[in-house]
């Protein structure tokens, strides 16, 4: 009886590090503004704390995915008195409509904000028609 119990406890203890790692990763969906200009859709995505090299933008199968991992904020021996910054990973997927040109995306990162410009297809852009 006792022996069995001991075995189950050992198993759980081995699972603990994996579980802790998963808990440590806190994926946050970043706040985003989307606006439209005559030529393009512009996404302004807040990624505070993300370094430029850690940001990954992927376009596939009609979706645009943005992912960024954040380095730990604090030195190891510090204790937190007050904590509201929770994200360790930013991740968000956007669905793209047919009117977007998949081959031309412009990305700019400044002050913790990623600006993505998705250009519209030639055929959906407004065109002025000349009157003869």
């Amino acid at each position, binding site marked *: 009886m006792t022996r069995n119990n001991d075995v189950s406890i050992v198993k759980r203890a081995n699972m603990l590090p994996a579980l802790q790692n998963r808990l440590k990763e806190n994926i946050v969906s970043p*706040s*985003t*503004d*989307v*606006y*439209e*200009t005559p030529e393009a*859709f*512009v996404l*302004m995505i*807040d*990624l*505070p*704390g*993300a*370094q*430029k090299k850690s940001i990954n933008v992927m376009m596939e199968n009609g979706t645009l995915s943005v992912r960024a991992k954040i380095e730990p*904020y*604090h*030195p190891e*021996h*510090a*204790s*937190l*008195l*007050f*904590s*509201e*910054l*929770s994200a360790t990973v930013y991740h968000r997927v956007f669905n793209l409509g047919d009117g977007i040109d998949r081959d031309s995306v412009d990305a700019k990162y400044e*002050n*913790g*904000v990623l600006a993505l410009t998705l250009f519209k297809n030639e055929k959906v852009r407004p065109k002025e028609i000349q009157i003869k």
Partner: protein
Amino acid sequence: MSLVRWNSGRDLATFPTDITTMQREINRMFDGFFRGGTVDDGSFGLSVWTPAVDVAENEAEYRVKVELPGVNKDDVKITMQENILTIRGEKKQEQESKSSNFHRLERSYGSFQRSFTLPAHVKHDKIEAVYNDGILTITLPKAEEAKPKQIDVRVK
């Protein structure tokens, strides 16, 4: 001694306008409750938005991190009065986006202010602030008298 949020709009409460703010406020209420604080911390404040803040401490210094994505560093003002640290400023909407046609508006704009009473004295002339990748980091070295000292006690 713990840090307590300062809030100017305690009586002039406005209701949170979107679900994210609402969720954050509810989380905050629970946090306060489980830490033994008051449930009503008056955080439905006057200011348009409240940037998230971390305060860390080690033996030598306090380090304050403020999430300020898209804020111009010239629009941020940091003041230290006695042991109250105040961060205020304004986040302006990007010029090009003002006149455009919006599909989604989730980011916050406008003025903000946050104050913290630090538990111990700091060296006022040694405070440093850096703004990088949307995070403002303020380092406040502790004053000599606030640092922990080791005292040998001889047992007789």
